[in-house]
């Protein structure tokens, strides 16, 4: 018992940190969101409480922006996974272990540069008079100037670039922890490379996949720098709405309501995604579970109707 309380004491700084810098600010935002903006020079007042700011935040005007943001968030996360998974796989299994440190460093190097500066770098590259546009035109690939900057595609490019390392690193760690033993066992038992990946490696690295997806999806949904720099009017995201309510409109009540709605949208999307994954995995899970019953005949690992009798749900 004394040992356990000593261990709990070690966690006090972390809890205090969370309480002061996370719980309290979020509670304030939630509190502001029930208030209103009093006059031109006031930012928020809470003497009359209502849900009106939520009705405003969910009006068709802003709802379109929430949908845009969700679209960018989902597609961006999927792109990060599709690009990040092969890279992480290659780093974990195909590269000599001595070289891995160097590769991890290369993945991390972009983080040494300020987020905003990296994003502005893309703005310079993909501008209609930027070097990429000029190069593509002189190579005959494009007929006119590159029409990419200030579109939603540019925002996708930006977020994929900015958040990719957050996908690669947890995936790499997860793949690495699967280790060669189980993969070799799978091979010995007759599975091909593809089967081994989908039946052994990927299921075992599920925690890493989930961590990577969450690490990318959550900050991406709240990102406003990338959308501001690369998105123009067409790539508007909720983060910008919240920022403009706090900074320009000075309407902290509405800005807070939008921030709370954004948090709920993120939580809801993650919930829906988890449910979908669970449903998709359901048939596979029952198929891989084999019950050796007292029935006559040899145990069959076959598929189709033959297996149905010995598979438990």
């Amino acid at each position, binding site marked *: 018992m004394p040992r356990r309380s000593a261990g709990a004491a070690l966690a006090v700084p972390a809890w205090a940190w969370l309480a002061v810098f996370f719980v309290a600010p979020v509670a304030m935002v939630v509190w502001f969101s029930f208030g209103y903006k009093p006059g031109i020079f006031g930012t928020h007042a809470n003497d009359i409480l209502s849900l009106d700011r939520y009705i405003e935040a969910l009006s068709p*005007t*802003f709802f379109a922006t929430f949908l845009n943001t969700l679209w960018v968030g989902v597609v961006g996360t999927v792109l990060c996974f599709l690009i990040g998974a092969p890279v992480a796989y290659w780093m974990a299994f195909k590269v000599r272990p001595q070289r891995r440190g160097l590769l991890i460093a290369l993945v991390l190097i972009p983080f040494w540069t300020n987020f905003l500066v990296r994003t502005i770098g893309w703005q310079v590259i993909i501008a209609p*008079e930027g070097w990429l546009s000029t190069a593509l035109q002189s190579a005959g690939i494009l007929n006119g100037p590159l029409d990419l*900057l200030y579109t939603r595609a540019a925002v996708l490019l930006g977020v994929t670039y900015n958040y990719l390392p957050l996908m690669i690193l947890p995936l790499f760690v997860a793949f690495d922890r699967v280790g060669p033993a189980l993969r070799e066992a799978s091979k010995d038992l007759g599975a091909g490379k593809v089967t081994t990946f989908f039946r052994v490696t990927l299921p075992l690295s599920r925690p890493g996949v989930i961590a990577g997806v969450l690490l990318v999806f959550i900050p991406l949904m709240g990102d406003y720098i990338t959308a501001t720099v690369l998105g123009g*009017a067409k790539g508007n995201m909720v983060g910008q709405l919240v920022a*403009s309510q706090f900074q320009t409109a000075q309407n902290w009540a509405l800005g807070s309501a939008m921030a709370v709605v954004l948090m709920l949208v993120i939580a809801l999307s993650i919930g829906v995604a988890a449910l979908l994954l669970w449903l998709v995995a359901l048939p596979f899970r029952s198929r891989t579970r084999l019950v050796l019953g007292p029935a006559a005949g040899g145990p069959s690992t076959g598929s189709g109707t033959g297996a149905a009798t010995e598979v438990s749900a």
Partner: protein
Amino acid sequence: MSDSHRPLRILAHDSAVPVIAREISRRRFLGFAAAAAGGTALLAACTPGGGTSSAPQATGGALESSLSIYTWGDYDAPEVISGFTRELGPKITLDSYSSNEELVAKLIAAKGTSGFDIVVPTGVFIPQMIENGLLSKLNRDLLPNLSNMDPVYLGRSWDPSNDYSVCKAWGTTGFVYDKNLITRELTTWGDFFDAAQNEASGKTAMSDDPAGIIGAYFWANDTDWNTEDPDQLEACRKFLVEEIAPHIAAFDSYPGTNAIPQGTQALMQAWNGDARLGIMESPDPDRWQWVLPGPQTELWMDNWCIAEGAPHPEAAHAFINFSMTPENLLLNLDYIGYHVGGKDLEQAAADDGMELLDFIFFTDEQLETMHEQELNDSQTTRVAIWNEMKAAAGA
């Protein structure tokens, strides 16, 4: 601080009373919270003189050793800043904001303890800032260089006797278009909206603030752009959100920084000084045409002011005065590309070899088409229209 029951008497305008009362009660609450945390002494030490009424005033005494200026980004020539420190001593700390609202919010939250000496609000915000006790009176005796300023740019409606403010720079809003894409001549705000819906559809940028966007609609229709008439504002909302928003590619208040040099857009609403810098930066300046559009447009003026509770009032007066010497007026004019309100500046700038002076100096007929904004109760509606237009452009 120890006697919390001492009555506090404040002389203020009627409309300011609720704000002050609310802020005081909030401040008292913060004071209790700090006391509970054992920080009372610290808090008291941080509050200069214990209140705004006893803030130090400039009397022409010795200059303090530092000066803190809170202004718009990149708004003073570096030579003026370094020259002030070299000649008069005080070290300058510069900080910047990107909207008047941001400045006001910070000053209100700090209650005279912001630590900023000089602030540079746009004229329309000054009356309410005075009402809310955010600005302190200037000591005109310490500003002899006021005689270098053109009287046209002093004594404006928001501060008729310049008790609180002196012109820092003024400008207007127009637009720039790409002559390769738009081959006809555009001269009015009506032309701007017409081109935005036709040749420049999907390649048009408007400024990222309610004033410029909503102003453009009323300027095009040649009506009072400060109207509070809900029907007119509704017509404006319908036009901007339904007709114009789908054609807008970006909301960018400073197209001169990137959009013009990089050729991103074909038609851009822009402030005169920003348009000028952008065209000068462009690899192909002849491609761009600047228009001061009719039938009317805007005049805005940013002003030197001293924040209430400024810790270095002597240095603040000295800096404002220093900025108004003829040489420094010219340096600032050249650096920011906006008229800085000095006398006979056009001749001086021409002698100095400055380019594109028609972006900075305007004829009397042009000046007559420029009208100033007023801050009124329609502000909330205007912000809502701006929000809705931005959301509609992204849909």
